[in-house]
């Protein structure tokens, strides 16, 4: 019950509804039990003796009870629905808020599918249990208790006889649940497998078709499809095994009751009406009993769901603004960034070497820093630390002399804009995507940003222009087009610090060149970090830092680095080894001219 105590904050303010749900159902059940009693009166006191005086009153009473019962049932349904819905609303909002503030390190190890199922299926499970399941569980208990009490009042030996059915039925029902539970789990796995087999096939359709491996894919799919079918058949088999047995046991109890009761009536120790009403009550008690397994399952499932949800809600937010943090004002920020002896190791990767070790960098306002290095060299780490996606392990990063950990987080991030390696666009219009960081941006500003990133032209060629909906379910854009929109999104903010994390890889050189030239204008007086693999992207940086396994191996300007043996020169050679002689001289001449 700890779980539900943990969730109390989300539903306790609606305890009126909780009460309504439980009491409504209990009252409806109690009224339902009155109905067989009325039958007894009808048979024993009216039909058998032949005295029909109170008949109309009895019939009206029966109808009244039905109506009242319906009313109580509605109270239960309505309250349960409201209770569950309000709970779901609060839980969903709370989880979403949590997701928004959890740090990058959380997302490094989290899987989207898992988080999604917590926010959908798990909340659904809790909603159902607290709204209805709890009341139903209570009700089953009430029903058994009241039902057998009433049967005992009518005739206790017969009650005792039928009572024997309870343990048998419960035993079978619980076994049923134990048996069916793993099948449900493997069905979920089968659905997942089927989905993956289809999903990969569709997303990788170009690869599939170009290798002409449709047959192989068909087999893979067949495996998934068969697995899905067989698991559902296994479910049906469990169902077929238990369901008819449970019904048979319940029916058996009816036969026993009628047999024993019938003999008693014949011998005159029981009235006919009592037998009929006992029979009616038994039917009512047995009905919910066989769902006992489901109800218990419902409880354990929702408990597990609650645990998963609470785990998410209790995740520590490691990156947050300090108390009395400095709030940056746009006008006062110079953009002077310093890395002072920074070391960093990724959380959850304690056994691996540091991602960054003793890193020093002084970035005066308005300068351009180029970062070069292989996978895992630490170049992306540098910029992510600056964003405070993670906190440094040792050393400090300062902005205009203030440690960024002392700056209010939101105001820090508003001064920076980053274009990630993988350009993620949201499902909305291109306009909204560009204005993502600044919802109130004017049309002119949006178009200007798009022009700077060389995106305006292709956007205008789309049928709906800036109103084209993109993102996962929208219009398919090429990698280069997405990158240009992502660049426009960053440029719109006119950030003090711009970070391009390998964000021009899908562009052809000419487009990249034009973007770089416009950047130089826009970013005059502002600070830029460029991570790239192409020498042409880094060429103009004020300082180029070459990283290898978290350490700086070379630093300097393009010309200086070309003169040194090392990774930079090797890369240059790989990209320009075949540089034709006739252009070499010309280029050298130009370089002298441009200084």
């Amino acid at each position, binding site marked *: 019950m700890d779980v539900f105590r943990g969730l109390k904050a989300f539903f306790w303010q609606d305890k009126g509804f909780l009460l309504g749900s439980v009491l409504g159902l209990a009252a409806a059940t109690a009224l339902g039990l009155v109905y067989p009693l009325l039958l007894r009166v*009808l048979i024993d006191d009216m*039909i*058998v003796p032949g005295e029909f005086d109170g*008949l109309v009153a*009895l019939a009206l009473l029966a*109808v009244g009870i039905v109506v009242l019962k*319906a009313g109580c049932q509605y109270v239960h*349904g*309505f309250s349960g629905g409201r209770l569950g819905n309000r709970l779901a*609303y609060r839980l969903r*909002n709370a989880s*979403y808020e949590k997701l*928004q503030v959890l740090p990058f390190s959380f997302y490094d190890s989290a899987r989207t599918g898992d*988080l999604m199922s917590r926010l959908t299926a798990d909340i659904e499970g809790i909603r159902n249990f607290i709204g209805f399941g709890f009341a139903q569980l209570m009700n089953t208990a009430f029903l058994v208790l009241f039902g057998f009490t009433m049967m005992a009042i009518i005739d206790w030996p017969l009650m005792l006889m039928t009572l024997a059915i309870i343990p048998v039925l419960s035993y079978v029902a619980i076994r049923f649940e134990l048996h069916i539970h793993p099948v449900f789990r493997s069905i979920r796995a089968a*659905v997942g497998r089927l989905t993956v087999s*289809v999903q*990969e096939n*569709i997303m*990788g359709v170009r690869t599939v*078709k170009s*290798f002409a491996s449709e047959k192989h894919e*068909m087999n893979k799919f*067949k495996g998934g499809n068969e697995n899905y*079918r067989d698991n*559902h*058949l296994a*479910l*049906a*088999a469990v169902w*077929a095994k238990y369901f*008819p*047995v449970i019904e048979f046991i319940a029916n058996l109890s009816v*036969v026993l009751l009628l047999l024993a009761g019938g003999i008693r009536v*014949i011998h005159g120790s029981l009235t*006919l009406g009592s037998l009929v009403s006992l*029979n009616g009550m038994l039917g009512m008690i047995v009905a919910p009993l066989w769902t006992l397994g489901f109800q218990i399952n419902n409880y354990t499932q929702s408990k597990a769901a609650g645990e998963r949800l609470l785990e998410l809600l209790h995740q520590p937010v490691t990156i947050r603004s300090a108390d009395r943090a400095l709030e940056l004002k746009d006008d006062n920020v110079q953009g002077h960034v310093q890395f002072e002896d920074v070391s960093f190791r990724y959380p959850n990767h304690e056994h691996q070497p540091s991602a960054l070790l003793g890193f020093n960098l002084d970035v005066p306002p308005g300068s351009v820093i180029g970062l*070069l290095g*292989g996978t895992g060299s630490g170049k992306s780490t540098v910029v992510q630390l600056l964003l405070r*996606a993670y906190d440094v392990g040792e050393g400090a990063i300062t902005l205009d002399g203030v440690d960024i950990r002392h700056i209010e987080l939101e105001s820090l991030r508003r001064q920076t*804009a980053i274009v*990630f390696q993988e350009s*993620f666009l*949201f*499902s909305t*219009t291109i306009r*909204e995507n560009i204005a993502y960081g600044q*919802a109130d941006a004017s049309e002119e500003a949006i178009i200007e940003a798009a022009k700077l990133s060389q995106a305006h032209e292709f956007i205008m060629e789309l049928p709906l222009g800036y109103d084209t*909906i993109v993102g*996962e379910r929208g219009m398919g854009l090429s990698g280069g087009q997405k990158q240009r929109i992502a660049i426009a999104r960053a440029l719109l*903010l006119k950030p003090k610090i711009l970070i391009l994390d390998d964000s021009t890889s899908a562009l*052809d050189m*000419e487009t990249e*060149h034009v973007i770089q030239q416009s950047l130089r204008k826009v970013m005059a007086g502002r600070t830029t970090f460029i991570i790239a*693999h192409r020498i*042409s992207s880094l*060429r103009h940086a004020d300082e180029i830092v070459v990283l290898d396994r978290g350490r700086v191996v070379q630093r300097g300007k393009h010309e200086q680095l070309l003169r040194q043996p090392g990774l930079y020169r090797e890369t240059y050679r790989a990209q320009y080894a*075949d540089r034709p002689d006739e252009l070499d001289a010309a*280029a*050298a001449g130009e370089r002298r001219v*441009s200084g």
Partner: protein
Amino acid sequence: MSRKFQYQDDDLIEKSFNWKQMARLFTYIKPYRTEVNRVVFVMTAFGMLTKLAIPFLISMAIDRAIQPREGDPNQGLLYGIMAGMLVLYALRWWAQRYTILKTNEIGQKVIYDLRTALFKHIQGLSFRFFDKRPAGSVLVRVTNDVNSLQDLFTNGVVNSVIDIAQLLGIIVILLCLQFKLGLAVMITVPLMFVVSASLRKRIRFAWQTVRIKQSRINSHLNESIQGIRVTQAFAQEKENIGFFDGMNRSNIRSWNFASALNQLFGPVIEITSAAGTLILLLYGTHLIQSGAMTVGVLVAFITYVSYFWEPITRLGQMYSQLLISMSSAERIFEYMDEKPAVGEKPGAVDLPDVRGHVRFENVEFGYEADRPALRGIDLDIEPGMTVALVGHTGSGKSTIVNLLCRFYDTVKGRVLIDGIDVRDAKLDSLRSQIGIVLQDTFIFSGTIRDNIRYGRPDATDAEVEAAARSVRAHDFISQLPDGYDTEVQERGSALSMGQRQLLSFARALLADPRILILDEATASIDTETELRIQEALGTLLADRTSFIVAHRLSTIRHADLIVVLDHGVIVEQGNHDQLMKLPGGHYRGLIEAQYRFLSA
């Protein structure tokens, strides 16, 4: 009016159902007709009849054995009747077991067939089909839409038949037992139908609205998790929380409405049925009083009337389900009716082992009718040549290779491989001899080994390793925790872009195609890998006709033939030295520009 996020919704299903669609759906059940008939027979004969006979037996037990109106109670008869009931219950046990097993078997088979047919059909569709549709919406049809027909085929069809039979059975029995009372009680049936139908319709619409809003929420959650880094970097957390609250609130509002309506169903039906109870009690006792009926029959009546509800409610649910199923069926059939744009000719031949002689004869092509992507393309490529395709984005480079693989058909002209028109060859034999390395390497979930083996599933482990070594992928693979057996997947994979690229090189090399196409394959690779790839390319290109679509000079320079495209037309062709000699030429311009970017 623009919104921060926009999601496409499914339509509300307004129309009643489409018989034609229904008939088409039933063609899938046809192969199992005899099985369906058998189940319906078993369930009606043993399941339903036993159920209907029981109340009758009970009434007999009361009227003849326990408390007969005339004569003494008959204990022997009571034993007999109870024994009979037990036998009927045992029969019912067996019949139910049989029905559950069989209906599910039939249903799952139908679903399996339908899904296979749909998937097979989609597999045969051309790129044009996939160009127009996001992967997610295709996926949903093969999975969710087919699944939603599951209920219809497993329980729906059989149960509806049984329910209708049960309803008729009850009516007949009631009329036989006591004609007048039966008629009187049945007055309430139309009332029940009307109330139930009108309420159902409202409930259905309400839930549909909820579902649409819920799927919007799910879409948003999904993308907000995937795009969380962008959100945090742009400090949009508060704005998003506000947006989500609005979404959530609106969803809950619809949910409250739907659930309140839904909860109304049971009570309203019960109150309606109270009318029946009232008639039953008043008129029933009157009949007993006048001696026209016995107590046992009254008890039987009470039981039968309570059985009435089950089939009526179920049929109502079934109808709602049917409407939802129909919209799924509609979406499935829409795909089934798509014709592949690139089809195999009836007399298509297997392309013999390709030498690699490729010819384009006056080829014209456009993705859209009025916008030609290629015009007047003539190319003659000798076996073993390396051809570089150069030009700006949109100049038609990729289109040329798409036509060679016959992902699309030419509008005019022909593409020949070793003198055979690609349209006369079987698609399988054509494409299996062409290998493509794409810009985005697609990694299938499975091991690294499986991924390399993708184009040739029967390759041995040694061959896989040899291929990986030749393209310099072996080093990084052997450093992975499980080497070649490391599990990878499309998302969340630990491989860098460059590593993926090397994998796809190994994949292509192992498949050993006669014609190889590298489509911008070296664009996003980090510096370390870059050096390796340069070496790997040499191995990859040897001894086969290859086409390279690339921006990078270093990969283009050594090509035997460089084809320069501009707006769908070949403007220059020749080797590097020849093209560099053309003053003011396109190629020379491109090369000069590249160096200018470097030094400007």
